[in-house]
Structures are given as structure tokens and as C-alpha cells.
């Protein structure tokens, strides 16, 4: 039978072929094996879920989302990867926890499953955490491609644009500017200039502190990528950062900063009681929802401040997605098929429209980024390239525990900043020594 192709069909065929070649997997062919993705209940679950639904509709491949409480994410995924047969094909974890998966050999590199896979050039590589070199044990582009970012999450400076307009303030770029602006708006107890985290938790006060530390040129370790874990927390930059943090809380912050955690910062912001906060960008959707916020349309966004001449230093707290090692090959291929679709510009535009945060830089240049409800996008795109991965080794949770305790005590006034920095540095040094990393410590800080 003669096969005729009309113009429309030809164009569709061309489009499908282009899409297929872009993703390097023939969507029109046999459907891939059904896969299971584990994900936690969170504000961005809805957008991820919608994006997954789109994938299923477009390709006919089946994806099952296993929704797990945040509390159980690490536990269930550990159970899954350590068993002989995994329950989840795509693992999704916070980057800090994912390190354990890299080191333990629980993730199969994407390029091993599909050697032809190319990373979309627009994807944010987020501190190169998507790569891992199993011999050198570091994360650089020379390593293998292990994961894709699922949710780029960094802290941004949220501030009350309406109050800025009232008082004729300028968006702060340096720490000094932030201090002055916060002080100008400080009017307790109705309005706090800024609310910072101070509470001790799994990753609470330390996460808030990093942008200050990194933004002033400080760090915890000298050069992680080169494998030099010498502790530099208690150098002059670390001292400047902690002194600033404490002073900011005293002069322009909450009187009980030592007990403030992220939930309480969100509470202060959405009830209109604070003018600035350093908060993860994933919270943006709460700000303009009238059911969750009393400051709809009043919050503006900016990269976290930096010292003059330096760059902003927001710490990465993003989510990565990778393929589990202990699942059958056909499911691994299907998982990579999903990831390669997910990284494309079109998929990310859909993600944005569903209320998510795109991982593809091209989306941030789309006219969509200029819409009012997406006003967080341009500042985020400006900040993301400077995002810093705080830890690249699995024992980092012990280091974080030390920071949490020390910073909390300093903020509560139990110990001085100098004592806090010295004791934290000493404890961290001991931890790194215990695990046989190349490390050293600085001489003690004096007041």
C-alpha cells in the first residue's frame, strides 16, 4: 500500500525525531520498563508529580512515585540499596546524604548505563556534586556522571520589598548594607529586622551560617577538592563571620535567636513580623499563597550578601536523583530515559509551570522568568553559579553536629565566639584525624 505523508505528519515526525535525538532514546519505540522513584512529601512534590505525569503521558512509560515522609527518606533508601534487590530505581536524596551513596558504591553512574548520554548544557551542575570519582574520592567533572539535580535548593535573601519602597532602601549586596537595612527596619516586637536560625538540629543553625562564612571568604576546610581537610574555621575570616552573625542578631534580630529554627523563620516571615530572612528558595511558593501567608506579593528575593570584592557564598542543600545499583538493567535504562527527558528545557518549563524550580538555565532566560510570580528566578540564576558544596565526604554529619552545638551555644551566649570557634575547630580536627584524612589545625584564636 502506498504510504503517503502529508505536511503535518511530516512536521510531527520531524519534531518527534528531533526530540528523540535530543534525548538520545527512541521514545516512539517500545515502552521502557516501569520504574519506581522514591521522593518525600514536600512543597515541591506537587510540581515534581505533575512533571512525572507529563512524562508518562508523552512517552507512555510508567512511573510509580513512592512518597515517603522526610523523616524516613534516608532510612528507607539505605534499606533499599543495602538489600539484594532494591525497591527504588531512582533514589532522590539531599546532596549531603547522597555522598554516602557515592562512597558506598550504591549508585550506578549514568554514563555506565547509557554511554551515549550527554548532559544538557543548561543544567546547573551545583558544585559538581553530580560527578564522583571513586578512586580519588572527590566530585569534579573528571569523575563519572552519577546523578542529576532534581531540585536546586540554596538559601536566598528574602526581604520585604514593600518596606524597602516605603523607606527608600536599596537591595543589599554587601553584609554592611544588609546590617544597615535590617537595623533600619528593626522595631521589636512587631517587626524584627532579620530572623536568623540559631537552634541546634540536624542541619539548622550551621546551614544559616554558611552564607555568612563563605561570603566573607571563610571556610571550614582548606581545599576539599584537593583532599586537604585542614581546619580553617577559626581563622580571621571565620571570626569576622561569627562576630557579624552574633552582632546582627543582637542589633537587628530576634531576641531569642538561639531557639529559632527554619519553621519559625518561615512563621515570622509569613505573618509579617520580620523584614529579612535567609531562607531556602524552595519556600518561595509559600510566600504568595494567601492561605499560607499574610505578606502576599510583598516578598522580594536577592542573592545572599557577600564581603566587598568577594562573591555570594550560599551553601548547597539541593536534591539529587541517581540510579540504584541493585535493580535490573532494563529498569536502570528506563530510569536514565526518564532523567534524560527530565533535564530538557521543555520538561523544565513544565516543571516551572507546575510550581517547581527549574534546573535548566535556559528556562531562566525565558520570558516566563519576567512574570511577577516568578520574580525569584533571576536572583536565583545569579546566585546558583556561586553556590558552594559544604562537604564532600560521608562523615560530614559528625562535623555538622559539632558546628550545630558550637554555634548554638555561641548564639545563646553560653560561650564566646572565640571559644566557640576554637572548640569547634578542635573537635572537627579530631574527627578528621580519626578518619585518617589529611588534616591540620590552626593555632588557637585569641580575642
Amino acid at each position, binding site marked *: 500500500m502506498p504510504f503517503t505523508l502529508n505536511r503535518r505528519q511530516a512536521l510531527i515526525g520531524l519534531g518527534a525525531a528531533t526530540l528523540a535525538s535530543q534525548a538520545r532514546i527512541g521514545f516512539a519505540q517500545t515502552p521502557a520498563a516501569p520504574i519506581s522513584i522514591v521522593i518525600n*512529601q514536600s512543597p515541591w512534590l506537587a510540581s515534581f508529580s505533575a512533571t512525572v505525569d507529563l512524562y508518562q503521558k508523552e512517552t507512555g512509560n510508567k512511573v510509580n512515585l513512592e*512518597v515517603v*515522609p522526610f*523523616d524516613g527518606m534516608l532510612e*528507607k533508601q539505605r*534499606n533499599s540499596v543495602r538489600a539484594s534487590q532494591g525497591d527504588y530505581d531512582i533514589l532522590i536524596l539531599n546532596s549531603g546524604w547522597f555522598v554516602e551513596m557515592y562512597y558506598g558504591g550504591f549508585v550506578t553512574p549514568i554514563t555506565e548505563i547509557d554511554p551515549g548520554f550527554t548532559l544538557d548544557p543548561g543544567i546547573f551542575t551545583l558544585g559538581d556534586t553530580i560527578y564522583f570519582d571513586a578512586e580519588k574520592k572527590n566530585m569534579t567533572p573528571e569523575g563519572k556522571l552519577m546523578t542529576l539535580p532534581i531540585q536546586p535548593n540554596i538559601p536566598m535573601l528574602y526581604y520585604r520589598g514593600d518596606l524597602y519602597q516605603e523607606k527608600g532602601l536599596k537591595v543589599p549586596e554587601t553584609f554592611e548594607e544588609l546590617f544597615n537595612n535590617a537595623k533600619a527596619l528593626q522595631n521589636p516586637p512587631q517587626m524584627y529586622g532579620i530572623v536568623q536560625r540559631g537552634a541546634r538540629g540536624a542541619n539548622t543553625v550551621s546551614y544559616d551560617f554558611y552564607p555568612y562564612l563563605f561570603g566573607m571568604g571563610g571556610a571550614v576546610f582548606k581545599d576539599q577538592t584537593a583532599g586537604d581537610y585542614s581546619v580553617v574555621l577559626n581563622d580571621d575570616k571565620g571570626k569576622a563571620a561569627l562576630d557579624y552573625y552574633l552582632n546582627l542578631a543582637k542589633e537587628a534580630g530576634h531576641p531569642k535567636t538561639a531557639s529559632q529554627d527554619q519553621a519559625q523563620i518561615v512563621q515570622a516571615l509569613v505573618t509579617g513580623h520580620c523584614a529579612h530572612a535567609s531562607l531556602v528558595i524552595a519556600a518561595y511558593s509559600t510566600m504568595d499563597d*494567601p*492561605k499560607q501567608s499574610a505578606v502576599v506579593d510583598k516578598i522580594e528575593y536577592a542573592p545572599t550578601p557577600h564581603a566587598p570584592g568577594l562573591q555570594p557564598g550560599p551553601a548547597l542543600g539541593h536534591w539529587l536523583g541517581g540510579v540504584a545499583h541493585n535493580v535490573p538493567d532494563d529498569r536502570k535504562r528506563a530510569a536514565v530515559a526518564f532523567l534524560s527527558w527530565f533535564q530538557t528545557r521543555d520538561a523544565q518549563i513544565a516543571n516551572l509551570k507546575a510550581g517547581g524550580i527549574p534546573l535548566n538555565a535556559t528556562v531562566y532566560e525565558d520570558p516566563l522568568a519576567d512574570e511577577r510570580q516568578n520574580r525569584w528566578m533571576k536572583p536565583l540564576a545569579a546566585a546558583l553559579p556561586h553556590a558552594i558544596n559544604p562537604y564532600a565526604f560521608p562523615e560530614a554529619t559528625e562535623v555538622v553536629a559539632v558546628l550545630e552545638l558550637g554555634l548554638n551555644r555561641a548564639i545563646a551566649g553560653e560561650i564566646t565566639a572565640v571559644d566557640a570557634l576554637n572548640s569547634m575547630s578542635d573537635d572537627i580536627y579530631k574527627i578528621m584525624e580519626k578518619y585518617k584524612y589529611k588534616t591540620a589545625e590552626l593555632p588557637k584564636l585569641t580575642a
Partner: protein
Amino acid sequence: MTQRYSLAYLLLAVSGLIVVVPVFWIVLAGFRTPISLLSGTWQFDPVLDNFLEVLFSSTSDLLLNYRNSIIVGLASTCICLAAGTLAAWSLDRLNWPGWVTHVFLGWALVFQMIPPVALASAWFGMERAVHLDNTLIGLILAHATLNLPMAVWLMGVFVRDVPNELVEAAKIDGASGRELFFSIVLPIIAPGLAATTVLCFVFSWNEFAVALNLTAKETATVPVAIAKFAQDYQIQYTQMAATATLSILPALVLLLIGQRYIVNGLTTGALK
């Protein structure tokens, strides 16, 4: 006459208030929008959003979780109470050597001291090996074991109240051990049994750490569903409150009916 009790009623009323106000607050929170709850105001316009979301949204399986919790709760409580009460009676009166009683009770108590996080991962490994993970039976067995020490010890206290003269008399009349237990002992320990049943059921109903490890989507229980609202950077208080409210209701009803049933059922079944 009522004067005598007015102090008692006063104390009970004050205690009742302290007990009930937070519970009431939780129930009310389920009817508020998040911003209204966070701003701490007393007045608010009630909304049904939270209940609709927790019951019917695409990522929620609350009705399924309910079903699972009820099945696991009832089954594990029955097993636990049956095994525990029988064992308590057996150890107390059926002439086991002293060391058996002490070792078993001690082992049971030590078992209770194992932290849930260690226990959950050990059980996951065990059940995975026999393909019992992600099954209701697996969770039922786990819960029955979790509450067994408490059942044995508590029923141990209550079976001691059974007077020996009664037991001896029944034996003289030719009653078998089984008849003795079911016709004489059970009615006497009925109130204690009711209380222990309530506790075992409630512990199973609210148990989280083990349930999280041993279940997945199809077998998840209500606490796992509730935990979903404690997220990485916020707690969705209003949805959590709505789910908790829905969770209290069946538990409360089951317990009130269950308590009365157990006490009445056992005592009316006694020999008159």
C-alpha cells in the same frame, strides 16, 4: 452529699481542662488555614481544605492507611493480649520453675529497652529475608512482639489478684486448667484486661519507627501518613492536625466500645 465531692469534681474539672484544651486546639487547627494558625489569633474562618486535602489528594492514601492501621491494630492487639494473658497466668500459677519465669520476664523487659531505630532495622533485615516486609502480617507480628512484654507484665499483676481458694475449689470440683482459665480467671481480670487492651491497641495505632521501616505505599499506617507533614523545612501543622483529628476518632470509638465490651462480655460470661 454533693458537697463532699465538690473538691473532687473541681480537681477533675481543672485536670480535664488541662487535658482537653490542647486536644481541642489540635482539632480546631485542622479547620484553619496555615496562616491563621501561625499568626496565633483566636478567631478564624473555618475551612475544610485540610480535610479534603488529606483525604482526597492524589498523594494521600489516608483511607488505605486507616484500613491498615485498623487491621494491624486489632490483629496485633488480639495476638498480644491472648499470648500475654495466657503466659502471665501460666507463669504465675502453673508451676513453672522459678528460673523460667525470671528469665522470660527479664528477657521481655530487656527487649522493651532496645531503641526503636535499632530494632526497626534488625526486623527489616529479618522480614526482608522471608519476604514478609511490606506485608500487613509482618507488621502485625512486629507490633504483637513490641507490646508483648507490656502485656505479660501488666497481666501478671492482675492475675495475681485471682484468689487461690477459688482456684483450688474449682480444681477440686474437677475443672480442667483450660476451663479454670476461661470461666473463672478471665472474669476476675476483666478490668485489667480491658486496660491492657486499650494500651496495646493505642501503642500499635501510634507506632511509627517500626511501621516506617516495614511498610511501603500499600501497607503504610496512619502515623506514617502523619509524619509526611513534618517536612524538611516546615511542618504542615494544619494538615497534620486534620489527620490527627481523623486518627483520634476511630481510636476513641473503638476503645470506648472495646472497653465496655471486654468488661461486660467477660463478666456476664462468668459462672453465676
